[in-house]
């Protein structure tokens, strides 16, 4: 029997980058086929080519033995291919039903959408898949896990037999991952073929029937999970041993860097999203905050940084109450910040690197002399950051958008650490960057910790959290529900706390 999918010699170039270089891939009918690779290895690009969203420069694609070439996703959809993207493709202001049917709307005469028909069909698909969401709910009301299910339903609704899931587990806690994997197995039992992208090797080994590894746009290997260990896989991916965050000797001091006392923060609708949170970070200490996204971590960091008002409670920085002071004042007092979304909160994408390095510190030397900008000083400092943090760039006058994600992140970390902050708020400092850059970031944070920096670390990467932190607190629905010692906690335990499962067990 012909394989479900066969990609032969796919090459795709972007300006300055070869995303896929002579990639070959063979996916058998009815298997779960994992694709692994570092960030930027070209996984998403390959999937987008398969899904008709991007056109390959070279190579052939065969679906069930038949050669195809897609100029738009609609042609892929016709062939029974469906894709769930790395980033959710849902319109918040549309209902679940509308989001699902778009592009495949049943219509009556005059272009009217046959909502009855659509609803019935959705119910059918949803029942089979175990969807319990009201189809008339607006997507903005859904939780992350629910959104992902809507994404998968979207694909199933079109009767796709070949499913592409691009990093579906990135936003899920372990328990949700289990649920997802159950569903995937069910789908496979119903005859679906699943292409599945994941960085997390244990997950890959658990679910995949076959694994293909990409490195820098090349296919390096196709293996069976029972033939390889996680270590082998990692080596295939990066060409060397996978680095892991290491806990080193404790450097925790008695001196309090940051103290949050009984802090409550309200959201835009005046509902409490952070409730009576107290946490203390000593100098030389890293306190990690674990939590499923949307449980108040963002609002907590916002409140500490001063971009959101505290409703009650206190924030004390090095003994000074900063609860009501401006962001600028806090920064001048020694608060550093690595935001969770570098494009939204961290960078001026259109501005040159040296202006980006000045951002956040622009009132102080060497970036400024009183009210005047010190361009020479800023540039010199930027060169320092570039050297010290290995930011790969042709020069410091290019705009920030020209850098790859990892280098952008190194630039941000560098800019914050070069200012020697006493307290650093680091939100997902290694999200979406490659292994090499990851290790560099960890090293930098550890070095600053040793030098006495107090760090509040928020991360969805539980290994990172456990590896780096001196203490871990778990945040659930706006409150801190547990304080844990990273030396004797596993990601699975953390997952239980994060979803509230362990609390229920305890009670």
């Amino acid at each position, binding site marked *: 029997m012909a394989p479900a999918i066969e990609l032969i010699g796919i090459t795709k170039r972007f300006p300055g980058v070869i995303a896929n270089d002579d990639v070959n891939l063979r996916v058998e009918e009815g298997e779960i086929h994992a694709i692994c690779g570092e960030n930027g290895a070209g996984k998403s690009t390959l999937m*987008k080519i398969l899904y008709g969203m991007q056109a390959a420069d070279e190579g052939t694609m065969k679906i069930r033995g038949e050669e195809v070439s897609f100029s738009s*996703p609609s042609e892929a959809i016709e062939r029974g291919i469906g*894709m769930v993207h790395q*980033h959710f493709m*849902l319109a918040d202001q549309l209902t679940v039903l509308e989001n699902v049917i778009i592009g495949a709307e049943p219509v009556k005469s005059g272009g*009217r*959408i046959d909502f009855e028909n659509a609803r019935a069909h959705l119910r059918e698909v949803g029942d089979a898949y175990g969807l319990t969401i009201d189809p008339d709910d607006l997507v903005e009301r859904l939780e992350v896990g629910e959104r992902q299910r809507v994404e998968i339903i979207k694909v199933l609704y079109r009767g796709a037999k070949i499913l592409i899931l691009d990093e579906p587990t990135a936003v899920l806690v372990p328990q949700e991952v289990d649920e997802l994997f159950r569903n995937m197995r069910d789908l496979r039992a119903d005859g679906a073929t699943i292409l599945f992208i994941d960085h997390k090797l244990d997950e890959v080994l658990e679910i995949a029937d076959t694994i293909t590894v990409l490195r820098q746009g090349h296919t390096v290997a196709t293996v069976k999970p029972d033939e390889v260990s996680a270590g082998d896989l990692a080596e295939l991916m990066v060409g060397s041993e996978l680095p892991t965050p290491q806990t080193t000797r404790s450097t925790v001091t008695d001196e309090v860097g940051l103290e949050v006392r009984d802090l409550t923060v309200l959201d835009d609708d005046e509902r409490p999203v952070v409730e009576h949170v107290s946490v203390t970070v000593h100098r030389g200490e890293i306190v990690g905050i674990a939590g499923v996204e949307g449980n108040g971590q963002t609002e907590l960091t916002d409140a500490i940084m001063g971009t959101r008002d505290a409703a009650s409670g206190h924030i004390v920085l090095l003994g000074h109450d900063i609860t009501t002071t401006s962001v600028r004042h806090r920064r001048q007092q020694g608060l550093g910040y690595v935001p969770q979304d570098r494009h939204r909160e961290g960078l001026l994408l259109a501005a040159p690197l040296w202006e980006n390095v000045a951002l956040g510190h622009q009132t102080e030397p060497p970036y400024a002399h009183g009210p005047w900008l010190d361009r020479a000083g800023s540039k010199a400092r930027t060169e320092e950051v570039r050297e010290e943090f290995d930011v790969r760039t042709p020069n410091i006058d290019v705009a920030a958008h020209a850098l790859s994600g990892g280098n952008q992140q190194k630039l941000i970390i560098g800019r914050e650490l070069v200012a020697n902050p006493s307290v650093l708020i680091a939100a997902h400092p290694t999200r979406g960057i490659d292994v090499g850059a990851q290790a560099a970031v960890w090293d930098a944070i550890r070095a600053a910790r040793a030098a006495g920096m107090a760090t509040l670390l928020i991360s969805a990467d539980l290994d990172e959290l456990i590896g780096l932190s001196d203490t871990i607190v778990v945040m659930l629905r706006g409150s801190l529900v547990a304080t844990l010692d990273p030396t004797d906690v596993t990601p699975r335990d953390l997952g239980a706390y994060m979803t509230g499962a362990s609390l229920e067990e305890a009670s």
Partner: protein
Amino acid sequence: MITFTRLAQLPAWARWMLYAAAGIFVLTVVQGFDDTERLTTTSSSQAMLRWAVPIMLAGLGGLYSERAGIVNIGLEGMMVLGTWFGAWGAINYGPWWGLAIGALGGSFGGLLHAVATVSFGVDHIISGVAINVLAPGITRFLSSEILTGYDGGSITQSPRVPGVGRFTLPFFAGGNVGSWESPDLLGWVTKKDWFFLSDVTSLTRGLVAQISFATIIALAFVPLTAWVIWKTRFGLRLRICGEHPQSGESQGIDIYRYKYIAVTISGALAGLGGAIIVSPELSGIYQEGQTNGRGFIGLAALIFGNWRPGGIMAGSMLFGYPFGLGLRDLGGAGSHSLLLVNTIALALVLVWAVSRGRRVDAVLAGILGALAALWYFLSDTVPNWWINILPFVIVLVVLVFFSQRLRMPAADGQIYRRGET
């Protein structure tokens, strides 16, 4: 509080009827103080309609465009094209063709905007401004080439522009059935001069008596647009362009195509608005500079209406009423009464703000309301310039109180490029 929640449970049409009735009631009571009937005459609602319709069409045009994610500040320019082409079409091919060609002229502006914003990724506002500069240049040139050759035409104006016919609803407003003149029910009640009831019928009659077919078509675009946007496949796909184009793209929808169509429709509606401005319904002639910022005001109506067809209609009426009234208000008494109406409206806002615990709104409403009241009681008439700017003031004040409750399409104004997810 309880009444507020009850109100919210009513179907939309009933709620709007109730609001309208309440509004008319206020007008009825207030105009008694000033001894004028201007606020509730049939001709006032006719004037409101006349002034609201082009604005509404511009607003609906903006709706198509912005629902598809393209901000359209070029509506004004598209409307300008509509005035010229509308006049030229009507003069050469008759009034119906005038409307169609006016729309076509506007859609040309829309197409240009689409090319710049969709294909070239130019900032939407910048492209819009450019179109607003270009459009008067084009029409001026066309006038110099074409209109100057007409008897009575010149570089800035056209000969008389003929118009489409008018319609009067039989039985309610006394329209003809065949050649038989049917009874005029609303007119009859109006003549009875019953408190409130006659005011309602008088205003209602203005909406169904002697209204131009062009106006009927324009009004029909409101439910039509609502239907298209909410109920059809085309509408859903249009909305995904404005909410999350990448999502639509990944479902195989050609986002560019929908954006192009939407912005072109947008221009066509603005152009139709322009064609109606030159029609005898409003002017009966093309004159340069005639749109007078109505495209911009349509944009305001769009925002005021929260990117919804019904809201846009309400917003246009809110603008058209004081504008039409101000022009018709020869003695100035009606406009003077409007001050009191404003006071009452602001008092209602005050009540609302207090009930919601919105202190700043309450204080603002209180101050503005008090000022309006003070002015009302200290004067007998209002100056001409005040009448001229009242509509703008009203829109501004409304936005001051309700801007924060508005929600524009999530991807509106963002530059979308295919294949970038």
